[in-house]
């Protein structure tokens, strides 16, 4: 986790993705999100359902066209007008692992064809023999064996299917993988297997991950840095240890205190911050800070002014008026 001299792989700047949802209503799923991902790191993205974390992932890889802002991958703009050929070269370097291992594999294709689809499209194998060799190699890398190659997805368990999804993503030798809730559909003991596999592959191949999940303890485990999203905004971003030890944003604090820990004594003694109410509708989000309607520390200014995205400590970014020094000195003077 060296902070110095890291090479940026991906830069996301003021990314916006709005959906038209009938009449004049606009759902701002992602609104002004900015972050960088450095080479070889894992950036975790957490938040509750509907906060825009999956949309962020999908917009980065251009499954959705961005409404505004830009995504730069190694200095090149991902969005914008592109020839087929240019798009193809991006697609080879950025891959995605999906949440539901039951829905993301075509039930009518054999495992070898699923895995080799990318190899075929990008012409990465010269002949059939080479193609099969790569498939076998990939199967072994993810802990399956050669005999599995000619089977169909329904013959596999959830954990095994997720391994196939990982093998498919690896087939084109990408630099960057977006994993959208890759473990939430799996059982606890299987989750650990998949997470261990992902970490092993990262070490061996120098992969960079964007790991999207709602399970905060798993995210902490796998990520170097973690970003917390709420209603289309990133509210806090910091190194994972720091974020979990000293969360600054009231939402992060509540989120962390809400995770039940498998320790009865701790559960009995723990003070929990229980947020009231539900997530407001992203179609008409609250003015100013979007969290203010549920925030235990909300002030008047939170309703009128958007909080600034600022570096409260080195490498620890937060968007909250509580940490705005200018504002606080103003308050003290009054």
């Amino acid at each position, binding site marked *: 986790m060296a902070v110095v001299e890291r090479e940026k792989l991906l830069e996301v700047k003021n990314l916006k993705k709005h959906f038209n949802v009938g009449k004049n209503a606009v759902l701002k799923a992602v609104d002004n999100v900015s972050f960088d991902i450095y080479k070889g790191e894992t950036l975790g993205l957490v938040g*509750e*359902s509907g906060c825009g974390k999956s949309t962020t992932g999908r917009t980065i890889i251009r499954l959705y066209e961005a409404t505004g802002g830009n995504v730069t991958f190694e200095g090149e703009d991902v969005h914008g007008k592109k020839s087929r050929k240019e798009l193809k070269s991006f697609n080879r370097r950025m891959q995605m692992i999906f949440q539901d291992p039951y829905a993301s594999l075509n039930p009518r294709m054999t495992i070898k064809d699923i895995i080799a689809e990318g190899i075929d499209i990008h012409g990465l194998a010269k002949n059939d023999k080479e193609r099969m060799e790569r498939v076998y190699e990939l199967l072994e890398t993810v802990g399956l064996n050669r005999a599995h190659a000619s089977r169909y997805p329904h013959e596999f*368990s959830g*954990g*095994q299917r997720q391994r196939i999804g990982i093998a498919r993503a690896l087939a084109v030798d990408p630099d960057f993988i977006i994993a959208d809730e890759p473990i939430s559909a799996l*059982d*606890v*003991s*299987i*989750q*650990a*297997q998949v*997470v*261990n596999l992902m*970490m092993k592959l990262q070490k061996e191949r120098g992969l960079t991950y964007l790991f999207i999940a*709602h399970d*905060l*303890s*798993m995210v*902490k*485990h796998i990520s170097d840095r973690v970003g917390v999203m709420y209603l289309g905004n990133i509210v806090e971003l910091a190194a994972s*240890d720091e974020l*979990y030890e000293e969360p600054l944003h009231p939402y992060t604090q*509540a*989120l*962390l*205190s*809400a*995770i*039940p*820990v*498998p*320790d*009865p*004594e*701790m*559960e009995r003694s723990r003070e*929990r911050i*229980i*947020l*009231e109410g*539900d*997530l407001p509708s992203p179609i008409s989000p609250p003015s100013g800070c979007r969290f203010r309607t549920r925030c235990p520390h909300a002030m008047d200014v939170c309703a009128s002014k958007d909080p600034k995205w600022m570096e409260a400590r080195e490498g620890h970014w937060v968007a909250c008026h509580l940490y705005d020094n200018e504002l606080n000195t103003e308050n003290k003077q009054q």
Partner: protein
Amino acid sequence: MMKKILELNNVNVSFHTFAGEVKAVRGVNLHLEKGESLAIVGESGSGKSVTSKSIMRLLPEKTSEIKEGEILFEGRDLTKLSNREMEKIRGSEISMIFQDPMTSLNPTMTVGKQIMEGLRKHQNLSKNEAKERAINLLKLVGIPNPELRINEYPHQFSGGMRQRVVIAIALACNPKVLIADEPTTALDVTIQAQILDLMRDLQQKTGTAIILITHDLGVVANLSQRVAVMYGGTIVETGTTDEVFYNPKHPYTWGLLSSMPKLNSAEKELMAIPGTPPNLLNPPKGCPFAARCPYAMQVCVDHMPDVTDVTSTHKTACWLLDERAPQVEPPEAALVGGAR
């Protein structure tokens, strides 16, 4: 000694499928005391939901069968009751909360009507009495403006609010036992915290005994006094929550506890349990966990282990506890924070 309100003795449940007989629950012994909360933990396919549905007699009659054993509710064997007798118990004496609040409510009925349904049927209340009670119930589960919201439909409620409605329906007739099948799995963490808080609060107020079915050990630690760990259709370990978390004896429990990342640990690799759960179409002859257990011996494969009493409340079915077996220490990762 507290009074046992529900007792399962050697319950076996099978499903008849085209592929053959699936033995989903095999010889489960459980009891529930008045006013306590018991958690059944296990992975998908471990038989935890089937166990709870067999108590409620909600399993499909055509394809499933309670092959053996008895389920005693206040001394009456539920497996022997007629459907009509069971209807009187279901929803009034024993009620259930389901996992998915989106699908367990009727989208074409107002929320109030759904709460009143059980009240009218079981308690013979008049329409006005039932309505008043429904409003009180909504208030109890923390829904603001109950007088207005009673006339709304489920789609007008958020996920967390729907789960509150489901809880209100379950509690409508003051049941003695409440079975909660993954009540918070479909909810977000902050909403989960609200619902767990509500359930704990309601249990203290109403004294209802709760069977909580979950795969989340954090939820168990939060809500339950006792735990039963299920694997491959059998109960492998049961005890008070403290006993099972701080002094686990079964290797599967060790595996479960250590495969969860701890928020306060810097450990880089998780202890995963290798392999996958057994196929219950032909369950293994011996211990169901033997194939994935790092400590398995020949005897584990050949014979089902007996239940050993660790303490009067803590029981484990594992050959390692036999006096002839080698002494094995649980892996460090399985030791929970306050372990002694």
